[in-house]
């Protein structure tokens, strides 16, 4: 497993970036300080040590849970992180559910009607999805559904409703179910709709495309013809034989498109004013909050690597039979 090497590599990059952007303790300094005072602070934070030592100190701190001080939130990064993470996870999972169910459904629909109208329309959809600037799509949806139609709200919740329940998990949907509060649940869902669709759109397109081409490939295989020759109705041939096997390569794309999803959260959270990691990052970028930015990069990379690793394992398990049987 080269995972540890990759993690170390990523941490090195993050460390380098943080040092490149000027002194990481810039927030502790001010113009009135004398050079001696500056030197004293530098020494306290270990900045007079050689770089490799600094790296180890920093890495050690990370592993112990010290990710620095967030200038934006005026608190340690690790303290603010969990709440933001919960909000982003809720949004990402919702978007992923949308993307996977819609993607597989559309891909199957298009693949089974190859070269006919549904297939062509789906292809247009796929390519647009991959080319769509997420932030623009978000704004368009907002203009139509929030400004003009007024169907959906902005933000994560209505302040009063949100405050009316306890938040053990930090996931609004789950917490409202646990609290047995349907009003809160609907509030949560209603606020999720637009952002989840926006975020999931691009990923849906990727999954659709892969599912479609997988399915077309499977439909051309001999065993599908043999299944028909047995007298199985087309619906059974499609579901039990073609689609099941087409799902296997699609799973790899689902893993990769997760990266796509992660990147989308940044702008989606900005535009929908969703209080998650992405918006936190955006603020950090605008205000030069190094610690937050680096923590974010570290987190997303670790997450991305983990998801891909899981996908690889799942695929290897499923594919063991397929590959050997070919």
């Amino acid at each position, binding site marked *: 497993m080269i995972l540890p090497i990759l993690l170390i590599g990523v941490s090195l990059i993050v460390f380098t970036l943080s040092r490149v952007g000027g002194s990481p303790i810039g927030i502790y300094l001010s113009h009135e300080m004398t050079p001696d005072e500056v030197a004293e602070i530098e020494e306290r934070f270990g900045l007079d040590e050689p770089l490799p030592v600094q790296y180890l100190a920093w890495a050690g701190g990370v592993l112990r849970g010290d990710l620095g001080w967030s200038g934006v939130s005026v608190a340690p990064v690790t303290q603010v992180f969990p709440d933001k993470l919960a909000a982003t996870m809720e949004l990402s999972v919702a978007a992923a559910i949308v993307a996977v169910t819609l993607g597989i459904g559309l891909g199957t629909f298009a693949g089974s009607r190859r070269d006919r109208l549904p297939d062509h329309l789906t292809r247009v959809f796929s390519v647009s999805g991959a080319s769509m600037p997420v932030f*623009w799509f978000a704004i368009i949806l907002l203009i139509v559904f929030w400004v003009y139609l007024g169907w959906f709200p902005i933000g994560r919740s209505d302040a009063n409703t949100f405050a009316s329940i306890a938040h053990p998990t930090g996931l609004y949907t789950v917490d409202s179910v646990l609290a047995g509060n349907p009003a809160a649940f609907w509030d949560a869902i209603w606020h999720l709709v637009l952002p989840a669709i926006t975020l999931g759109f691009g990923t849906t397109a990727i999954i659709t495309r892969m599912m479609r081409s997988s399915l077309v490939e499977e439909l051309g295989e001999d065993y599908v013809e043999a299944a028909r020759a047995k007298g199985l109705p087309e619906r059974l041939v499609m579901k039990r034989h073609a689609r099941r096997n087409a799902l296997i390569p699609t799973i790899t794309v689902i893993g990769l498109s997760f990266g796509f999803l992660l990147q989308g959260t940044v702008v989606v959270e*900005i535009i929908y004013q969703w209080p998650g990691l992405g918006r936190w990052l955006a603020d950090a*970028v605008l205000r030069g909050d190094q610690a937050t930015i680096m923590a974010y990069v570290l987190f997303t990379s670790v997450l991305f690597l983990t998801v891909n690793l899981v996908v690889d394992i799942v695929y290897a398990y499923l594919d063991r039979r397929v590959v050997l049987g070919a």
Partner: protein
Amino acid sequence: MTDVVGTPLSAAPVEGPLAVRLRRFTDLARQVLRNKTTLAGLIVIVGMVLVAFLAPVLTTPNVPDPYQMPRDWGALNEPPGTPGHILGTTSDGGDVLYGIIWGSRVSLRLSVIVVSVTVTIGVIVGSLAGFLGGKIDEILMRIVDVFLSIPELIFALAIAAVLGPSFGNIILALSMVFWVKYARIIRGQIIHVKQNEYVDAARITGDSRFNIFLKDVLPNSVTPVMVQATLDMGSIVLVGATLSFIGLAEAGLAEWGVLVSKGQVGISTGRWWASTFPGLMIFLWALAFNLVGDGLRDVLDPKTESR
């Protein structure tokens, strides 16, 4: 059908190698253009490139810096259709159409520079890894893997944030992130060629490694690199616009992402045009390059069904 048995060898004239290459090229070009969607994409690209080049002619360039949006305090937030401002104006009175036209110039610059730089870096790194092999190959490929572990947008964002908000830094950041795939392609090609028997034959006849590189590796790599570069032309503008949108470019720049960002403030009061039109351009740009890239891939590498 002619008889198979006893057919004499064709007496057709033999083409020179250059003529063969040229004919193959025109054949491929024709095949690519046969696909209607690819053709549409190509037309859009040509249109946008033309607009980019003709920007100083199509509009009155802003002084002192045409890349800064002009400000007209007398024409704030005008809706589309206002005389003199077909697509409306921004909250600073900047003409949206101006922003779109000069934005295409900015995008063209961005994508061409970044693609050129990244292809070069990628080719160099990939060649070093492929030819030198061994430890160097391992180290370089580990670096590639590490770079691929960080999602592109986030990586570029971190770099640009650290360097400071400016469009130049965005160009720099993107160049540092997008070279990776090319390195892999080139290295893959070299390894493939290395494993091919005819290279050994060439070595026997005394061809130097560099010659092999020129004659075998490069020509075979052209197609996947071309496909990737075309797709990247679209992605780079997308990511670049996103970075500008988040705020990593200079405010007031005549760039599509910046314009969308500026315009979003007004949408709650129904001023949709300042964000919608520039965003549409980003979409069309990416769409066109994706269509052409897909079309190229379908023709040049039919194994990978991209449809």
